[in-house]
């Protein structure tokens, strides 16, 4: 079998006495959606941070598209096709929605040592950006200053910025965090349209979202992956139920 798109071996990170990730092994194949679930403080966001390059692991390796990227900085990983969204909305608040996405396009359109042409008049940046905004359902909001968008719209913008780089792997950190039911359902519909065409690693608390999207689920507790498998297997796993599902999902 060919090497999976992403493979993680023995990934470990401790903050002082706290073990955030403990010998984590993961594999994600092309086109697959892997959900990582677990109670608060299980190390999920730390895991995403290590995959994206924002947090340096203490031990372990991360291989992406056959290359060891364990020590690569964040921008270099983005250039290789790894895009992330943030748990706490992270956008350029003073700029319009279209500006935000066009910037993500610009990041992958050669160097930016260009000092003369107004970037906002460059069709090679604006057209793809608008296309992605329309894809996530924000086409009509392109000219709105991002900081004034509704919370749900800002979350959609997060996804749009990740998509604009045409990534091979999407790392989504709690994409429905803080959303109402309507917003959350809209986000799930959007994410469903992204499955298959994109490989996704999803960290999420909301079990309905996880079961609606995931091909496979890994369960983290206290920094360790205690179980991995198809959604039905995970649902039925007694250890998982005791550690996590029992608290939130009734059978």
């Amino acid at each position, binding site marked *: 079998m060919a090497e999976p798109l992403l493979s993680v071996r023995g990934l470990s990170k401790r903050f002082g006495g706290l073990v955030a990730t403990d010998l984590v092994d993961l594999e994600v194949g092309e086109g697959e959606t892997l959900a990582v679930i677990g109670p608060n403080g299980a190390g999920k966001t730390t895991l995403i941070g290590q995959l994206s390059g924002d947090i340096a692991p203490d031990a372990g390796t991360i291989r992406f598209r056959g290359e060891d990227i364990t020590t690569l900085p964040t921008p270099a990983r983005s250039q290789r096709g790894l895009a992330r969204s943030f748990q706490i909305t992270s956008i350029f608040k003073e700029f319009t929605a279209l500006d935000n996405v066009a910037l993500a396009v610009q990041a992958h359109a050669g160097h930016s040592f260009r000092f003369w042409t107004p970037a906002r008049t*460059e069709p090679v940046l604006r057209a793809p950006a608008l296309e992605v905004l329309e894809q996530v359902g924000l086409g009509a909001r392109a000219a709105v200053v991002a900081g004034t968008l509704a919370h749900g719209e800002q979350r959609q913008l997060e996804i749009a910025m990740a998509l604009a780089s045409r990534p091979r792997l999407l790392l989504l950190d709690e994409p429905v965090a803080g959303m109402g039911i309507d917003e959350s359902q809209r986000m799930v519909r959007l994410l469903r349209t992204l499955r298959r065409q994109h490989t996704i690693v999803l960290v999420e608390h909301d079990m309905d979202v996880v079961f609606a999207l995931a091909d496979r689920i890994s369960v983290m507790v206290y920094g360790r992956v205690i179980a991995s498998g198809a959604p039905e297997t995970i649902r039925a796993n007694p250890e998982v139920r005791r550690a996590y599902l029992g608290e939130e999902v009734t059978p």
Partner: protein
Amino acid sequence: MGQRARTMTLLAGFLVLGLVPVVAALANQPFYLDLFRRIMIFAIAAVSLDLILGFGGMVSFGHAAYLGIGAYAVAIPAFYGIHSGAVQWGLAVVLSGLIALAIGAVSLRTSGVSFIMITLAFAQMLYYLGISIDAWGADDGMRLARRSDFGGVLDLTNAYVFYYVVFALLVVLLGLGRRLIDARFGLVIRSAKSNEPRMRAIGFSTFRYKLTAFAIAGGVCGLAGALLANQTEYLTPSYMHWTRSGDIMVMVILGGMGTLYGPVLGAVVFLLLEDILSAWTVHWQVVLGPLLVLIVLYARQGLYGLLPGATSRNG
């Protein structure tokens, strides 16, 4: 409407600066020529600082270092008999740009208060270097034997010619600045100020862009330094003193951080206040202080934000 009002305001401002020599000649007050030339020179320095401070979010507290390097780049060749303006000014821009590159390469590895302190420390190092070199005047400084020489093309000893040279440089630099901040490069440094982790996540190695902006700002301020040496016909290490860095920073904040023309306005108001009030009292900053506090508290875009038609450039 806002757009038009702003254009008119800007044109009026430039018209005033352009007509100062005429008024000075009619009123037979050559002093105004001198004052407004000095104002425009500091406006260039302030605009260069605003590129990194206001647009790039890099709070450099050592910007006067480049003013000093630019001045030395004129005075030292002159001391050894090289008066060519092309050589002196070229040297001023290149040298201060390169030194900014080196200082930035170290400083930009830090952020926040550390960045402020490290840029301040570098500038003070250069200041103390300046006062320790006896051959070049040490802390007394040295007179500039003559102004930069541009052959038969421009005669800087003519106060009017010199004035319009500075005026033209200011206008050209503002024009280039306008292009830069809206071009890809400008959007990168402005967005890095807004949200650097996001910039890195979407694939920008922000360091190289910030460093380039830092070097450009240094180079432009070096040019201002070369002009300043010609203006005062004197070189003193005090051009690099940290209080001078503070003055330039105050001009930027007063005029409006992150606006292109604000620092020009800031330089005008700061130096006019200094000129008018210091005739009454040496403690003229007693007036400046409260004004600055009011601006910081109530006018997010400084004095420029209070002008008719001024709007946020980001929208």
